[in-house]
């Protein structure tokens, strides 16, 4: 396939990244594998000794694992919704960042459900979910929705990659033969003919349309696992949209962080510009404000009703001796910090926005934890077993090890994928984008490192 000058420049800059694995990449890979190995040992203990090695007991039957599950499914929204919406709206500046977004979606959707498996005590009955599904159960909806969503995310990512695979195939990269064969197979004979372009365009449009409602359904279903349960802090009509909003919000945060890392790591200042951070910062600001409104509404209605059990959960959340500080962190860093960072021109810079995103993403993780644990620690019926570890949930090192292993897997997949495909899509840039990118590059702040062509 022939490349225009801008595509050629983008490809030449990124070619060494996918041709060489490099010592640094090996170092990171081994580091992540060591984390995963440690998690594997923790998993062995959990299987051998049972869930007694976790902090979960009769009352708090969900803990760190479920918080991780919701978190990962949440950040998968980065690709699904942001990429889908920007595609439909034909927003041109999306092109350099959509691959990162779609990679986040696929990897996060792959890792998230693993935490469900870690939470399930009986692996040997896992196939019962498929063999004996109960359509009335939100758990069944979740299994179906997430597997469908995963399939859609993979297709969406693949569609956006076909043209690039054709470029890799034709470029005769200095990579092993097996990789060349894979590129050739994945390019499925794409040569850039008008009719082939049309097929890709139809498919991309279809996926962009379907992925948005699908993503909304997936996270709504996830919220209904809680919302349809008559438990204080969970049984809420706004849980569906609240979860969806929180998911897009945290997904945006992870996307900004990934952009910041890749921009620095691979010197992609020409493509991922300050404007990208600022535009995504604006999206984050709007989402943050909406999320803050939902949060306030959720707790205000619960508090105003003064229902006994609801008050018990609210007391736990606001009490400094229980979850008060975490609750404060979740709201200050999860709502106020991103809003103020983007609102003030002085801090409306890539570094500050990325830093605010980091804190926001951590706060959103804490928020998921606070949704699950305080409610489960406040049962409607009196506790039968009042041993301390039954009354208060405290994650064990096994749960933390597996959580870190999940995060390491996320980073590892990202590292490996960035060595297999270019982070900036090559084929997406037509000649007209050249001018656009030039224009965007011109607005890049002085402290940004622009790599000369």
């Amino acid at each position, binding site marked *: 396939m022939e490349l225009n000058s801008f595509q050629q420049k983008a490809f030449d800059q990124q070619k060494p990244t996918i041709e060489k694995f490099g010592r640094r990449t090996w170092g990171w890979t081994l580091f992540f594998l060591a984390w995963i190995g440690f998690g594997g040992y923790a998993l062995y203990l959990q299987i051998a000794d049972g869930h007694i090695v976790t902090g979960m007991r009769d009352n708090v039957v969900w803990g760190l694992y479920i918080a991780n599950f919701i978190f990962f499914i949440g950040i998968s929204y980065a690709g699904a919704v942001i990429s889908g919406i920007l595609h439909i709206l034909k927003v041109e500046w999306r092109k350099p960042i959509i691959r990162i977004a779609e990679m986040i979606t696929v990897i996060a959707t792959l890792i998230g459900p693993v935490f469900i498996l870690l939470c399930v005590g009986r692996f040997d009955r896992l196939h019962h979910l498929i063999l004996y599904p109960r359509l*009335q159960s939100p758990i069944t909806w979740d299994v179906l929705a997430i597997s*469908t969503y995963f399939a*859609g995310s993979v297709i969406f990512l693949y569609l956006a990659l076909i043209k690039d695979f054709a470029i890799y195939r034709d470029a005769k990269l200095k990579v092993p033969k097996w990789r060349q064969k894979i590129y050739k197979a994945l390019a*499925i004979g794409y040569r850039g003919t008008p009719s082939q372009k049309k*097929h*890709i365009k139809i498919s991309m449009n*279809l996926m962009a349309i379907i992925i948005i409602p699908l993503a909304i359904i997936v996270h709504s279903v996830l919220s209904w696992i809680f919302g349809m349960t008559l438990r204080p802090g969970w049984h809420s009509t706004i849980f569906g949209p609240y979860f969806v909003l929180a998911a897009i919000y945290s997904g945006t945060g992870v996307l900004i962080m990934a952009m910041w890392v890749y921009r620095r790591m691979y010197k992609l200042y020409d493509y991922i510009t300050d404007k990208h951070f600022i535009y995504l910062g604006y999206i984050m600001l709007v989402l943050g404000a909406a999320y803050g409104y939902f949060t306030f509404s959720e707790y205000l209605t619960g508090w105003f009703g003064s229902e006994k059990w609801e008050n018990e959960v609210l007391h736990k959340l606001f009490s400094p001796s229980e979850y008060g500080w975490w609750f404060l962190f979740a709201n200050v860093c999860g709502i106020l910090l991103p809003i103020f960072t983007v609102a003030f021109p002085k801090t409306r810079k890539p570094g500050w926005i990325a830093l605010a995103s980091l804190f926001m993403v951590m706060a959103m993780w804490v928020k998921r934890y606070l949704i699950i644990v305080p409610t489960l620690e406040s049962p409607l019926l009196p506790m039968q077993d009042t041993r301390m570890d039954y009354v208060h949930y405290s994650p064990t090192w096994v749960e933390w090890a597996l959580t870190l292993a999940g995060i390491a897997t996320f980073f590892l997949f990202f590292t490996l994928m960035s060595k297999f495909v270019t982070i900036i899509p090559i084929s997406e840039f037509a000649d007209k984008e050249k001018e656009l990118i030039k224009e965007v590059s011109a607005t890049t702040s002085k402290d940004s490192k622009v790599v000369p062509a």
Partner: protein
Amino acid sequence: MPCKLFAQTDTTAKEEAKTFSPLIEFKSIQKSDNSVDLRASVKSKINGTLTTLAGYKIEFKEGPDSVAKKIGEAITDGRGVAIINCKPDQLTTDAEGKLNFKASFTGKDSIESGEEVLAVKRARLEITPVKDDSILNVKVKLMDLSTGTETPVDSTEVGVYVKRLFSALKLGAGTTDEAGEATIEVPSNLPGDDKGNLTLLARLDENETYGNLEASVMQPWGTPVSYEVKELPRALWSPHPPIWMLVTFVVLMTAVWGHYIVIIFELFRLRKEEPKTAV
């Protein structure tokens, strides 16, 4: 008479060898047809937890200790219980008119062997349904058979029960008079089987002299209730989901996976349209 014991073993030696003593609960139930059910339940305290011992052999013997003869054996079930039924011709009484039984537990692996004995006087409980206008009663009669003749037993409390799905529901109790009889009323609104049949039981439980006695009779005194499983309606709680839910599910899944299929079809067409000269 039911009783419990730990087999006679040296506890220090037991700990060293990591063996456990069985706890045997042995009782007899004399039936109205003069047969006797022997029931032995075996448990053991293993590592601080009282555990039922399933799959162990229990040997039952009848007669005084010196001339006891084996009348049968049974393997303990999941609850650690072994039961056998002794026919009247297998039973002998001693000079005091007592029936003597022994249950011997054959130990295995870390579980030690053990045995338990019991001696009860021969007796019989009879149950007779009596319908007086609309009042339903059962007459229960307790007879001592230890002397070879039937002697009424007075001043003894007997209970009347109705058999339910898992256990017996007590309807009432009465004390036997000089004729060894007690009359207990049966409610007329009890749910029965599909024909309205009730199984009424008379029981003498854990009596010091006679142990356990039981008699039963079936009467059509209940309200007919069919236990036939009917087709459950479509609901959230039933195995069948509501139609609207099924339709929503099928529509959503078809819409999404339909899109996927169209896209895969488009990709197949893309592959077919690869210019041959370009290869």
